């Protein structure tokens, strides 16, 4: 029930803007990319680590980093939590009371060299790459300095040279890739006096780790950190306690980073393909609507004009008819008046004539 409800809600959401989402390209496969065969890694056994900071010193030396403010022998540095930085590709942190009988636990932190690195999937110039030897390498000659790789890294590892104005780089542990190519082991591994760090093929390291867990079930938690986290990492960890207690996140999931954005990337061709067609369709429709509207308007105007003309004609005709009638009447009146006048005149004339005749007769007599 709850699954189908969630699915249903998902569909509703997707229906609105399905195009911008798409489904994960790898959703159907249950096998993730498990890294290059024979690629190398390091196993960090925190149960064996004593927090001597020798690895930090070795890392600083092989990478020619500037010496720190407090010397590597000063263990008071461990009292504050640190993260990797420009001047320290690796740091050891102390977790008070996290071990057996309330003993402190020490954890070395550096790039985990993910099998499918978030930093590499984020970089828009491919400055980061997973090498077949296992190291995630960085090419400063193309890096633009957008720092999206730092946003993307789930372990908060890469650091940026903010103080460099002209050639700032992203920096992080290289797994001593140059040394590996020379056939040497990483500096930190070589220096560790307690064998808390083991360098080898990732496959072999997993076997070793499993063996230790099996052999000493009361000493180790039954979990190899990095075997599956974020799709797996080349750096692996063993712990005597839950990893959450020693500052390592347990909520990262097993999905490799590229899968997180596969859906959004997959939507690009859909948008590019569908939008123009859709929009042209809408345009054509609105044009047609406009055209029809224009035609209707024309017709309406024509009809209105015709009506008005007809009315005007009728009025004109009425007026004319009336005028004609008036004229006729006027003419009749005029005729009558003329007749009247004529008769009157005739009458007058006759009377005058009679009078004249009368006077003449009187004069004659």
């Amino acid at each position, binding site marked *: 029930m709850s699954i189908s409800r969630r699915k249903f*809600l998902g569909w509703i959401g997707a229906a609105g803007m399905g195009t911008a989402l798409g489904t994960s390209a790898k959703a159907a496969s249950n096998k993730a990319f498990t890294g290059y065969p024979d690629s190398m890694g390091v196993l960090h056994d925190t149960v064996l680590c004593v927090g001597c900071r020798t690895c930090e010193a070795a890392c600083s030396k092989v990478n020619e980093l500037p010496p720190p403010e407090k010397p590597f022998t000063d263990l008071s540095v461990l009292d504050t939590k640190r993260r990797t930085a420009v001047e320290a590709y690796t740091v050891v942190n102390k977790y008070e009371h996290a071990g057996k009988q309330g003993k402190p636990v020490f954890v070395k932190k550096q790039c985990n060299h993910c099998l499918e690195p978030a930093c590499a999937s984020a970089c828009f110039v491919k400055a980061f790459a997973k090498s077949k030897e296992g190291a995630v390498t960085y090419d400063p000659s193309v890096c633009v300095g957008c720092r999206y790789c730092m*946003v993307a890294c789930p372990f908060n590892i890469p650091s*940026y040279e903010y103080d460099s104005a002209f050639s700032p780089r992203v920096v992080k542990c290289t797994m001593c890739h140059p040394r590996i190519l020379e056939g040497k082991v990483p500096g930190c591994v070589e220096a560790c006096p307690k064998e808390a760090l083991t360098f080898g093929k990732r496959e072999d390291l997993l076997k070793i780790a499993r063996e230790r867990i099996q052999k000493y079930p009361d000493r180790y938690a039954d979990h190899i950190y990095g075997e599956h986290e974020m799709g797996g990492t080349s750096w692996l960890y063993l712990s005597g306690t839950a990893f959450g207690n020693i500052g390592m996140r347990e909520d990262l999931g097993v999905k490799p980073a590229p899968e997180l954005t596969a859906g*959004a990337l997959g939507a690009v061709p859909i948008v590019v393909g569908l939008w123009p067609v859709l*929009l042209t369709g809408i345009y054509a429709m609105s044009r047609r609507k406009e055209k029809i509207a224009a035609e209707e308007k024309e017709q309406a105007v024509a009809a209105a004009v015709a009506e008005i003309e007809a009315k005007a004609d009728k009025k004109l005709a009425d007026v004319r008819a009336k005028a004609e009638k008036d004229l006729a009447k006027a003419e009749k009146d005029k005729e009558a008046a003329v007749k009247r006048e004529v008769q009157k005149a005739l009458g007058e004339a006759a009377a005058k004539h009679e009078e004249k005749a009368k006077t003449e007769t009187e004069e004659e007599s």
Partner: protein
Amino acid sequence: MSRHDTALYRKELYTPFNLVAGIILIIGCVITVLRFTKGLGTVTHLDDNYPWGIWIGFDLLAGVALAAGGYVTSSAVYIFGMKRYHSAVRPAILTGFLGYALVVFALNYDVGRPWRLPYPFIMQQGTTSLLFEVAACVALYLTVLFIEFTPAALEWLGLRRARNIVTKLTMLLTIFGVVLSTLHQSSLGALFLLAPSKLHPLWYSGYLPVFFFVSSIIAGLSMVIFESTLSHHYFADKMDKTHLEEKEGVALGFAKAASLVLAGYFAIKLIGIAVDNNWHWLATGYGLWFLAELLGFVALPSLLYAVGVREKNLTLIKWTSGMTVFGIILNRLNICLIAFNWHLPYAEKYFPHWMEIGISVFILTIGVLVFRFIVTRMPVLYEHPDYKDTHH
């Protein structure tokens, strides 16, 4: 120029606005020199946990969203055939073009080696990166906006033939603009899909690209209203009769659309919480902050716009547009900065250096000055008398 004219010109130049703008420009130039000679560390509070600050959160993310007015308006008028909003197109295209130009300008401050900005295209294409998609679309869209704006400049320059050729491309450019905008507006949200462990679950969602795209429409609509009221205040003498007559209709129409899209946005935000079953987070501190954003700057403006449209209350619409714009900026800052790295203790969180804010204000000021330069000269708020009735 006679002496009298010069004096008059001087007097016009020394307005309080110009003085303040001048001071900002001078400070901005000083910070610029510092940035490019001493590096990012001197002028910003960026660190390894917060590689992105307000230059990304405000200038890029909010800037691109607020510049969405260009594609929203031109597609409404040219594709959806709402000719009655025609007078809103040019100012919206101009604001969009300036917006994107300034975004790219700001990026030159933010990236470590700005002279390498073309590298993703000419050296190696990191096509697995959503940032690559953003970069490609923004670059192309800036070009599209530039071409879309050229008719105004060409009319001003009196180049009739060139202008007529460009206007023939309108439909093509509009469609191209919508495609590019859909892609990069949503991809800006998708950038954060890669950081599920850093962004607070209430803001992180598989729907982030959808949220960003839909909210960009809201931002675009609101910016057109907001900017048109500002323009009306300051450049009313530049507006012709058509512009003034259509202005009210534009505000009402866009407010109605914004109200609807805000309501839809509110709904899909809720769906986002439901899909990931994040309800229990609402009862936390971040939850209250999330609710403040969702209720105060999504639900409320949707309502206020609706009331404003029903009562034809332009003042209410104007204020609501400002509020909505603020809400979009808040959303981008939440995702990029405030709810980002929510696991970190408060002391390790980022707060911008005053010089970062200085550069953001500097860039905004440049935008306003260029906008003023253009609208007081080119036919943006009015139609060029020679080209009246040549609506394409």
